[in-house]
């Protein structure tokens, strides 16, 4: 399976080609080239998946492969960084997800970005991102993953800041980069601690002997927690940064300043699930530190509820989708947190998480692409500008509805199956978190249908000056494709392919959980219908009745303000300013003093360099006569 290297090299080549030629290429040519490259890549990924999942099982498990691996840097006898490709069920699954969504976004952008300045650059960055993300999922070792992890961050930064003339986009890209970079610091420290004790970066070695970190660092504690817990919690910090977990989520809503297809690709379907993937990849190691898994569960659950509440009151449709993404990723994180690898049943959360990752990528990409089509038609992100669009954009309307049903958890759409598995797994572990997550699921249904009704129903738009029209074929095709996938993905026997220990797991619905979640979802949808079907002042009344809460939620519970307060008021004033003062006055002052002293002295003595030869001869003569006289006197 050596050809899998081309899945990485092809987008890289496209990046170099499009990036270096840039405006030498016609935009159309660049777009088609990029799309073709991604098509080949997708075909290769599908073929790999086909080969991988049709191979015979060994001990009931699909054997993993390392078709490409070469040593890149060697530090010590044990520690070395390799670059290679590691294929196991989850990485193959991720390959399929990434290439599919990426291909759809490539096709969609042909229409969406048509006529934009920097079209070629856009495609070059898309290729760079695809390459980095694919490299991340097939990484053979944690350090390779880290390298590609940062590359993903860079391409995300570049794409968010694509409209670099817009100050908001620049600020957003900077924020995304700084916040994720801050989280990655934790990730790096975690990696170093982990590999220091286990003496390996390699995933296969790490997961084969997950308790190595415990035995190697036995007895060492730091601030009351064992070193192993610290290492894994710090690694999770990196994942939480990328996956926009509370409180590191602040960059994701702002990242919506980028082009909408980019939001679909990076900030909904692929990059933001990197954190989930990271935890899943190291899952056997996480299982030896249950306290870290509890931490993961708690963080995920809080994030899920927080993001769901905020999503209910946002008015920018991309912000709503952004918070919904945060909430859904939190679902996956919670599912991982409640799983364990003792047996298949206990590991249900792992499978559910991966399943939800898969289905979520599809329907969330669909939602974003649909939102893109709407924005394309209306030229605004604000809900108040929309309403009654169903007549003008039938295809978008239908596909958007399918995606909303899927995310709300209505059978037979894919979201129902994966979310139901998650709820079952959570309920199995702890009833408290189970009820909590069920409420969040209900909120999900509510805010998604609020969005749906506000866009497509609510009011009849006055279309005298501008008629919204359906998007071109290049944009509707991906929508239709993703809608079809969303309809059928739930029936994929996912448990057979991916599970915590690789053994096939037959998915069966827990009827009580399923019924509850459907009832909750339907109630939420009905509530949304009642409130938003026709233009009325019910939502306004509710807003007034709960004005404090509403404003707090609208301002995202002031988390951004808290960050600003901490960074500007506390860190800048109390730490940075004294340091800056010290730097400016003490360090610079010392240097200035040297310079000034030298300058003063030289200003005084520069008169000696008169440039007059005779003056010099005078000095020489007087000097030599003095020396001669002194010598003579000494000899007397």
């Amino acid at each position, binding site marked *: 399976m050596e050809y899998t290297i081309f899945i990485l090299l092809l987008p890289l080549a496209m990046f170099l080609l499009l990036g270096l030629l840039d405006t030498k290429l016609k935009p159309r040519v660049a777009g088609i080239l990029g799309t073709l490259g991604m098509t080949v890549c997708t075909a290769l990924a599908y073929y790999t998946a086909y080969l991988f999942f049709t191979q015979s099982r060994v001990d009931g498990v699909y054997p993993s492969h390392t078709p490409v691996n070469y040593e890149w840097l060697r530090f010590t006898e044990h520690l070395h960084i390799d670059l290679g490709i590691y294929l196991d069920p989850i990485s193959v699954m991720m390959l399929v997800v990434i290439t599919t969504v990426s291909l759809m976004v490539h096709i969609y952008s042909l229409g969406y970005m048509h006529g934009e300045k920097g079209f070629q650059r856009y495609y070059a960055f898309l290729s760079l991102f695809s390459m980095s993300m694919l490299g991340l999922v097939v990484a053979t070792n944690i350090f390779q993953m880290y390298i590609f992890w940062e590359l993903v961050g860079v391409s995300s930064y570049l794409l968010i800041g694509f409209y670099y003339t817009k100050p908001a986009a620049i600020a957003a890209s900077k924020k995304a980069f700084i916040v994720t970079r801050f989280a990655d610091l934790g990730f790096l420290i975690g990696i170093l601690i982990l590999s220091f004790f286990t003496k390996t970066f390699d995933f296969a070695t790490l997961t084969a002997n997950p308790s190595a970190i415990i035995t190697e660092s036995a007895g060492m504690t730091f601030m009351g927690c064992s070193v192993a817990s610290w290492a894994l919690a710090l690694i999770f910090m990196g994942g939480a940064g990328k996956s926009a977990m509370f409180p590191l989520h602040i960059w994701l809503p702002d990242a919506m300043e980028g082009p909408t297809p980019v939001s679909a690709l990076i900030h909904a379907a692929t990059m933001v699930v990197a954190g989930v993937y990271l935890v899943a990849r190291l899952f056997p190691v996480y299982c030896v530190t249950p306290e870290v898994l509890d931490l993961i569960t708690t963080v995920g659950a809080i994030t899920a509820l927080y993001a769901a509440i905020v999503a209910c009151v946002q008015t920018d449709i991309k912000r709503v989708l952004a918070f919904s993404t945060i909430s859904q990723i939190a679902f996956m994180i919670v599912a991982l947190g409640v799983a364990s690898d003792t047996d298949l049943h206990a590991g249900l959360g792992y499978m559910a998480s991966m399943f939800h990752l898969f289905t979520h990528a599809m329907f969330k990409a669909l939602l974003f692409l649909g939102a893109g089509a709407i924005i394309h038609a209306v030229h605004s992100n604000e809900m108040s500008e929309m309403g009654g669009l169903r007549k003008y954009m039938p295809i978008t309307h239908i596909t958007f509805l399918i995606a909303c049903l899927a995310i709300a958890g209505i059978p037979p759409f894919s979201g129902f199956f994966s979310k139901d598995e998650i709820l079952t797994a959570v309920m199995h572990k702890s009833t408290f978190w189970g009820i909590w997550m069920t409420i969040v699921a209900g909120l999900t249904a509510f805010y998604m249908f609020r969005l749906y009704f506000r866009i497509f129903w609510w009011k009849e738009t006055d279309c005298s000056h501008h008629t919204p029209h359906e998007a071109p074929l290049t944009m509707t095709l991906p929508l239709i494709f993703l809608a079809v996938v969303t309809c059928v993905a739930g029936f994929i026997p996912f448990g057979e392919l991916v599970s915590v220990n690789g053994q096939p797991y037959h998915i069966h619905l827990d009827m009580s959980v399923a019924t509850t979640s459907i009832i909750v979802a339907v109630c939420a949808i009905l509530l949304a219908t009642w409130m938003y079907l026709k233009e009325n002042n019910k939502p306004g009344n509710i807003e007034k009745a709960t004005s404090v809460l509403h404003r707090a939620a609208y301002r995202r519970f002031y988390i951004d303000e808290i960050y600003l307060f901490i960074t500007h008021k506390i860190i800048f004033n109390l730490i940075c300013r004294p340091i800056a003062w010290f730097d400016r006055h003490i360090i610079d002052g010392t240097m200035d003093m040297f310079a000034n002293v030298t300058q003063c002295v030289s200003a005084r003595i520069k008169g000696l*360099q008169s440039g007059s030869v005779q003056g010099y001869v005078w000095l020489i003569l007087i000097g030599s006569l003095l020396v001669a006289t002194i010598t003579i006197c000494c000899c007397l």
Partner: protein
Amino acid sequence: METPMMYYIVISLVMFFAGVYGFMTRKNMLMMLISIELMLNAVDINFAVFNRFLFPGQMEGMIFSIFAIAIAAAETAIAIAIIINIYRHIRNIDADNLDDMKY
């Protein structure tokens, strides 16, 4: 060899300090160069004289003088080239006027 060595040395001494005096008092660069030649010549005499009176069996001093003469020739050629170049630029060869490049 009836003439004592000191006689010769006194001659060269006078010649040398005549050069020094000239170098310090004259502004014209050609005059300064002439003074330098005087000093060099005085030194050459000293070499030859010391060789003759103190180490008559050897010839280091004389050969040193020969080299000094050769180098003096080279030095004079270059110096005169420079002086002519300066004259072309500022129509003057007074050392006092050459302060454009001072600090």
